[in-house]
């Protein structure tokens, strides 16, 4: 009897230890590219993964990941749809989210963001998705992050979103690059705001990762790294983020980027 009790006590201790260790990550745009790699990496770590995307019915790769990992949950979320954001926030109310990764973003049509053929609707689409979308999702889930253990919020920026450096003499990609500068400013402001709750808000950049966005949308032909390598580098930066180190964007290779 004493042995049984001890065993039960031990099992309870294990269970509670496990519960304390099972962190949760919410990732937007998790159906492909870097978002999918983030989902895979955290699932491999044993985290609970809330993988969101616009159209779960078309997210075959994510379905395959879920089949391998019971802790992956797929949720429908278009970051430009406020009612979808609100419903998901209600569904997960009071559930601690240790890490929120604002990964969803678009490059935008290249022709519409060339000087001489600007298009207002495309400008709005890129800004709404890349900047307002990240802010709206962060606002909706901030209490979940505050209630968690890790308390981290991340957004994806880019070396092309830096106002200093070799990119400056390159024309083009106006809306995408402006959206990343605006996002940098917004996330930094959110970080200052949430600091009092112990939340760290950081920006990471993926380098030239061979995603659909870079290869197909941008038609990039230069040297690339794999999405898995890029994400492994960014997760290393996220793991190490403190209030101090999150004061500037960090590239996947550890390089600190200028604003």
């Amino acid at each position: 009897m004493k042995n049984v009790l001890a065993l039960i006590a031990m099992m309870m201790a294990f269970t509670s230890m496990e519960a304390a260790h099972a962190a949760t990550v919410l990732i937007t745009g998790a159906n492909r590219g870097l978002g999918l790699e983030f989902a895979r990496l955290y699932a491999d770590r044993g985290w609970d993964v809330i993988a969101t995307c616009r159209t779960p019915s078309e997210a075959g790769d994510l379905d395959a990941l879920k089949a391998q990992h019971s802790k992956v949950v797929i949720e429908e979320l278009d970051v430009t749809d406020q009612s979808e954001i609100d419903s998901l926030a209600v569904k997960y109310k009071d559930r601690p989210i240790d890490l929120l990764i604002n990964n969803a973003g678009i490059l935008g049509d290249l022709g519409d963001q060339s000087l001489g053929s600007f298009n207002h609707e495309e400008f709005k689409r890129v800004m709404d998705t890349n900047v307002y979308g990240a802010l709206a999702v962060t606002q909706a889930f901030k209490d979940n992050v505050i209630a968690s253990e890790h308390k981290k919020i991340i957004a994806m920026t880019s070396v092309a979103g830096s106002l200093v450096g070799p990119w400056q003499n390159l024309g083009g990609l106006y809306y995408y690059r402006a959206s990343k500068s605006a996002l940098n400013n917004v996330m930094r402001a959110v970080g200052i705001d949430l600091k009092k709750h112990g939340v760290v808000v950081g920006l990471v950049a993926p380098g030239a990762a061979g995603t659909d966005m870079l290869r197909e949308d941008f038609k990039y032909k230069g040297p690339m790294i794999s999405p898995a390598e890029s994400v492994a580098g960014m997760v290393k930066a996220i793991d190490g983020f403190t209030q101090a180190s999150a004061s500037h964007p960090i590239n996947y290779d550890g390089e600190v980027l200028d604003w």
Partner: protein
Amino acid sequence: MRHILAALVLVAGMLGTQSAEAATVLITGSNRGLGFEFAKQYAEAGWNVIATCRSPDQADELKALATKHNNISIERLDVLNEGEIAALAQKYKGKPIDVLINNAGILGDVPTQTFGSVDRANFDRIMDTNVYGAISVTEAFRDNVVASDEKKIVALTSLMGSIAATGPSHTFYRASKAALSMSMRVINGHLRRDGVVVGLVAPCVADTDMLKEFGYEGPMTVSAETAVTGMRNVIANLTQETAAKPINCDGKPFEW
């Protein structure tokens, strides 16, 4: 007779010199605040001033200024109205514009750009006006600037638009200025091969209606007049080197 001829040549020479030296500036949002002050100072300095604003009918101060200076042309231009931009560009087609000042901008509603109660309609309106408005005006008049002597394009930013110095208020206004900075830097990258310099200038803490609308209660460090005198000086000295950072009205660059 020889003296008369000499005098005629001299007069003709002076006329020629004067027309070669009368530079042209186009200013958006010139009905009030810094835009108005830019129009006033450039007109007093002898420049041809194309002073644009959304509602010339209601721009009483600007109209009064134009009656004193015959080198001011008031034009209707809402920077969000693509039809108005295209019509004005057509009207000035082939006319060199030495300095284009993208001054028009809004602060937007304050409560709905505060984290915790943000609203997308307010976000769109601020981004559209402060960023898209400036880049579409620049797109429409870039050939006029390329055809000029000075070849300068500036946009008004603010120390509040510095990412390095950002804070947890006026989030959309700040974000719009960061996006504007990037957009203008990309335009610079595109047009520098034509000899154009694109710069970001800031008015210090200038005493304007907009700053009062911010709810700003601290000291106004400069008058609108001093801020604009300072920014005109910054614009006059603008080069690819100095334009690598935003510059305040006191001539000091600050971080992006």
